[in-house]
Structure formats: structure tokens, C-alpha cells
């Protein structure tokens, strides 16, 4: 089975805690890049599918040269191959251009059976690249997958559980397909020292616009219909009132505060 996992490198959430109190902006210091948390589940699921059904896992990322580090993490976990799509021409891509670029990269890999994406990336928080990519590749899509029940390679079918607001939906569709995964699907493995060392030495091919073909005006800034016009940090939420007193008294005050403001009605 040919498995492709799309991963993105994102700034770590921990690093963004600091806010400059005077300028009201985020402080960059100590920003560390990590594999998008949902993509760790995607990588793990790819490797598990390989272990269960045989085949090969290729991880692919579009991003600046340092996104190579994210790909190395995936190789250390057990992915077989990695490809980086990187070119100055890709800068400023929104989800439409990102999905386009990834789709060309995946087409270049040849026939595939399944593409796995994370549910969303923790920086942009859009959850749009997976569905956009499925359209570009003309693949069936199953989003929010919490469990792959079965892949039948003979009938070329996948049966999966997906988490929607009101419960779990069990669906099945034909391969090739694209799925996006949520955290519940597995527990990502921690790579051992040996595989980390091996991954550090891995050669990762870098494909640019020339390698991918495609129309130059569909990439990067020009290929992105959306444009950010303003970024601002929301005013930090003000901590409110700490209700004092012994438990029964504090609880009574809390109920009074909530009912008098119509937050709860008893």
C-alpha cells in the first residue's frame, strides 16, 4: 500500500505564551518549531497502516528549508521516505495554494492508495488543506477520522469511524482516499536514539516550482485569493473576581453572581 502523510511545521504553542506588555505583541524569543500536533497522529497512523497491510510511507511537507526538521522527525518515527516542497515562489500560500502545491507533489510520487492529513494545523487552525487537497487529487474524503476499522486491499475499500459533533459516524468508501485524523486515533510512538540518528543523516529531496510543473500564477502569493490585511493581539482577558469565604458562603456568592447576571436561571 502506498501511503502519503502531509505534515506541517508550526511554531510551538508553548513559545507563544509571552506577550510584550508594552507593545502588546507576541515575543518571538525562544520560538521553537515542532511538527503540527495533529500530524503526529497522521504519521503514526501511516506507519501503523504499513505495519498492518505492508507498503511504504512517504511524508511530504511544503515549507521553508527548515521544515526538513519536521520531516526528519517523521523518518525517525518510521516513515520510509520524505519530500520537501520548498521554493521562494511558494511564499505567502493560503490554503488554496498550499493544497495545489501539495497535490502536484503527491502526483509526482505516482499512484497512491491513501493520503493522511491532520485535522488542522495549530497555527492557521483552518482544517481546509485536507478537503482542498482531496478535491485537487480527485480523492474521496473522510474527515475527522478517529479510527480506521479496516482497509480491504482486494476490494479497495476503507471503513472508518469519524467524529462529528453529535457522535460517531461509521463510513466506508473506495480507495484511493484522503483522510484527516483527530487525536483519538492513536498514541504516537517516541522514536529511539538509533532511529533519530539515522534520520539526521537522511537525504531529503527538495522539489521547487520547476520540479512540480503547474502554472506559476497558481503558486504562493499570486495563487492565494485570501490576503491578511491586519493582525492584532486580542486584549488579554481580564481575570475577574476571586470569591472569598468558606465554601458554603463562597458558593452562595457565586450562585448569586451567576443568577443576578442571568448567566444561569434557576
Amino acid at each position, binding site marked *: 500500500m502506498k501511503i502519503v502523510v502531509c505534515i506541517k511545521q508550526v*511554531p510551538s*504553542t508553548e513559545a*507563544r505564551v509571552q506577550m510584550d506588555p508594552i*507593545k502588546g505583541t*507576541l515575543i*518571538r524569543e525562544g*520560538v521553537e518549531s515542532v511538527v503540527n500536533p495533529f500530524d503526529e497522529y497522521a504519521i503514526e497512523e501511516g506507519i501503523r497502516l504499513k505495519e498492518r497491510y505492508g507498503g511504504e510511507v512517504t511524508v511530504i511537507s511544503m515549507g*521553508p528549508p*527548515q521544515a526538513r526538521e519536521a520531516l526528519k522527525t517523521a523518518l525517525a518515527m518510521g516513515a520510509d521516505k520524505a519530500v520537501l516542497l520548498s521554493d*521562494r515562489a511558494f*511564499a*505567502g500560500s493560503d*490554503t*488554496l495554494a498550499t493544497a495545489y502545491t501539495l497535490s502536484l507533489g503527491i502526483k509526482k510520487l505516482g499512484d497512491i492508495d491513501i493520503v493522511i492529513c491532520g485535522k488542522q494545523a*495549530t*497555527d492557521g*487552525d*483552518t*482544517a*481546509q*488543506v*485536507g*478537503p*482542498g487537497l482531496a*478535491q485537487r487529487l480527485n480523492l*474521496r*474524503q473522510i*474527515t475527522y477520522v478517529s479510527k480506521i476499522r479496516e482497509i480491504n486491499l482486494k476490494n479497495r475499500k476503507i471503513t472508518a469511524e469519524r467524529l*462529528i*459533533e453529535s*457522535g*460517531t*459516524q461509521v*463510513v*466506508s468508501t*473506495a480507495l484511493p482516499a484522503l483522510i484527516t485524523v*483527530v*487525536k483519538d486515533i492513536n498514541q504516537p510512538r517516541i522514536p529511539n536514539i538509533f532511529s533519530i540518528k539515522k534520520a539526521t543523516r537522511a537525504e531529503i529531496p527538495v522539489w521547487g516550482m520547476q520540479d512540480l510543473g503547474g502554472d506559476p500564477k497558481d503558486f504562493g502569493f499570486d495563487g492565494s*485569493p*485570501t*490576503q*491578511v*490585511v*491586519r*493582525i*492584532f*493581539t*486580542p486584549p488579554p482577558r481580564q481575570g*475577574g*473576581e*476571586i*470569591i472569598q469565604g468558606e*465554601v*458554603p458562603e*463562597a458558593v452562595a456568592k*457565586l450562585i448569586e453572581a*451567576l*443568577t443576578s447576571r442571568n*448567566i444561569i436561571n*434557576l
Partner: protein
Amino acid sequence: MALKVIKENCTGCGLCVDVCAYSGIKINDEGVAEVTESCILCGQCVDVCPAGALMMEEKKATVEDIFDYKGVMVFVEHEFGKIHSVSFELLGKGREIADNLGVSLSAMLIGAEGDSMALEVARYDVDTIYVCNSTWLKDYQTNTYVAEAENIIRTYKPEIVLIGATTMGRDFAGALAARLKTGLTADCTELSVDMEKRLLLQTRPAFGGNIMATIISPNRRPQMATVRPKVMAMPEPVKNPDVQIIQVQPVSGPQDMLLDILEFIPDTAGTVNLADADIIISGGRGMKGPENFSMLFELAELLGGAVGASRAAVDSGWMPYAHQVGQTGRTVRPKLYIACGISGAIQHLAGMQTSENIVAINKDPDAPIFKVATFGIVGDLFKVVPELIRQIKGKKQQTAC
């Protein structure tokens, strides 16, 4: 590159470098700012530059027929025959935007009981309802719904399309925008109009709510946005006597149902689901064990709310993942969020900090959750929660008599 450095103006102060979360800009050997390959063109550096040395190139003027597109259209989402409340919220907001632009408001309804649902939609102030009705459109499937929506949009050419940012809405919108090759802004919490340019200003949280971004789609149509449920006000039903219901012939057929929906397992933990709940009672590591969540369920039941959990509680196996709130769980925005034994780690806050009111119950006075709480009680939750239940029960009995 679309971000330009005007070298003559740059003083090399480095504010741009400080503000960038991506190492997208640096001060080079000549002592001036230089854009690096990591730049994502977010424009934050442009805003902080005191010397006017940074400039963002505008998107190129359009060559497309964008002026053929007129009007605001709302996608009507439904599940098990029930219209999702976010669709009505969007009709309210859509009306306001349409009035500002001086255009009409329409609704797009794809389904199997389209006619009866159209009557429900017609209770609100909408000008046109496009109904695409067929047996195979009964349940949402990406492929069939996207095909019908694409047809409706290409035929009736709305300039703006609004969709609820629900799980279904995001599955649908992401695919539809790619099919239409147009811009899509995710999970907006604010919409307004730039009257001069007649553009939709779409504001949304990113980075788990640590940053807000305003986004436009200047040169493609329609301008599409998914909008977070419960953010826009629910409109009053106002009947429009001139409402038109237009039947649209389906372009898909039963063979286009690419998914077999085999089974649905409703979430049985609690009676209200997290996404719909006005009140959420959440428990964290401080709950100590799964058995103690029963008191949160009791409180939720009393208040008509749902039960959530922090990642720590989910990873310990105390609550199913569907109830996890936070960066790798769900994002919620209830009227009231009660956090019991939750420290308030940044990843948890990312999923709940926009709640209207937050109550924190935690024994550690320094827990970060207190920094965002509207009301806090520093104390042992095993005493506070049962007391809360006891007093609420008492009050309810009083009012019942």
C-alpha cells in the same frame, strides 16, 4: 516577494524581528531588515515598523468577472432533518451585510425534505431560497453536496457565501472553495464590510486565539467564510412577504454518493453535546479519577449543560476524547464554562478562552486558569462542587414551590 523592505527608511531597530513568530525577517549584515524564506506574509511586522520601512504589496487587480457576482448567500446546514442554529445566525448576519451592500440575501438548501425546511427558513427575513431536493441528498455527503452547491453558486453568482464552521460545514466549505478556486476564511468570529471596496472583512482567531487576523479575498468570487456557531446573534423571525422559493434541478445522481454511511453511534455521555451547549462543566487532572466525573454530570444535568474535560483527564482515560476541550480537542464558546481542577495550560485555554463567562474552581491560587476566569473559587473541588449541587438543588426546589 510581496513583502518589501524600503532600505532607505529602515533603521535596523529590529522590532519586526521581535514580532515575527516565524523567523520570517532578520537584520542582515548591512544592518537593514531582510525578508527570509520563512515569511508567511502575515503583515505583523508592517504594523509595528516605526519607520515605514516595510510594505505589503496589494493583491493584483482582477482580470476576472467579479462584478457579475452579487448578493449574499447562506448555506443551510441540517442533520437528521433538523436545521442547525448556526444557519439562522448566518441569515441574521447575512441580512445586515446584504443591507449594507444594497444587495439581496439568499439561502441555499440541499436535502431531501427541502420544501418543508424551506418554510422554516422562510420564517426569517430572506429574499430567495434555492432548494435542491432529492432522495439521495437526504444525508450530507461531501461529493453530492459540493456538486449541487457548485452548480447553484455558478448559476446564481453570489458575491459572498457564508457557512457554519461546524464539523460538517468545514468538511463541505474546504472542498467547495477548492472546486470554485476561490478564497475561504476559516472559523470567523466577526464579519463586516469595507464599503469603499465592497469587500467582506473577515476576522478570525488563529494560533488558538492568541492572534486575531482580518482577511479579505479581493480578486476572486465568491468571497467565502465559515463562521463559528454561537458568535453571531440569533435573529428574530421576520417574515418577508416577497420571499421567493426557487427549485433547482440536481446535477448529481445516486451514483455520486461516494460514501456508504454504515452506522451512527450517538455520544451517550450526557444529554447535550459540547458544540451546542450553553453551559459546560469541565474537569481536569484535579478530578483524580473517572468516578468523580459523575458529580460533574449531575451539575451539568441540573444546569442543562454538557461535560467537558482537559487533555490530562482524557489521556488518563477518565473521559472519552469527544469531550476534550482545547488545542487538540474541541473549541467551545459557551455562555458559561466551569473549570474544575483544571490548571489552565495554554493549550486548554486555546479551546475555551472565548467563552462568555468562565468560573474556575482550583485549590492552587496561582493556577493560570484564574487569569481568565470571570469568577474564581480557590478551594477543594471535592467540597465546592457538591456544595454547588446542594445549593442549586435547594434554589430549584424553592422556585418549584
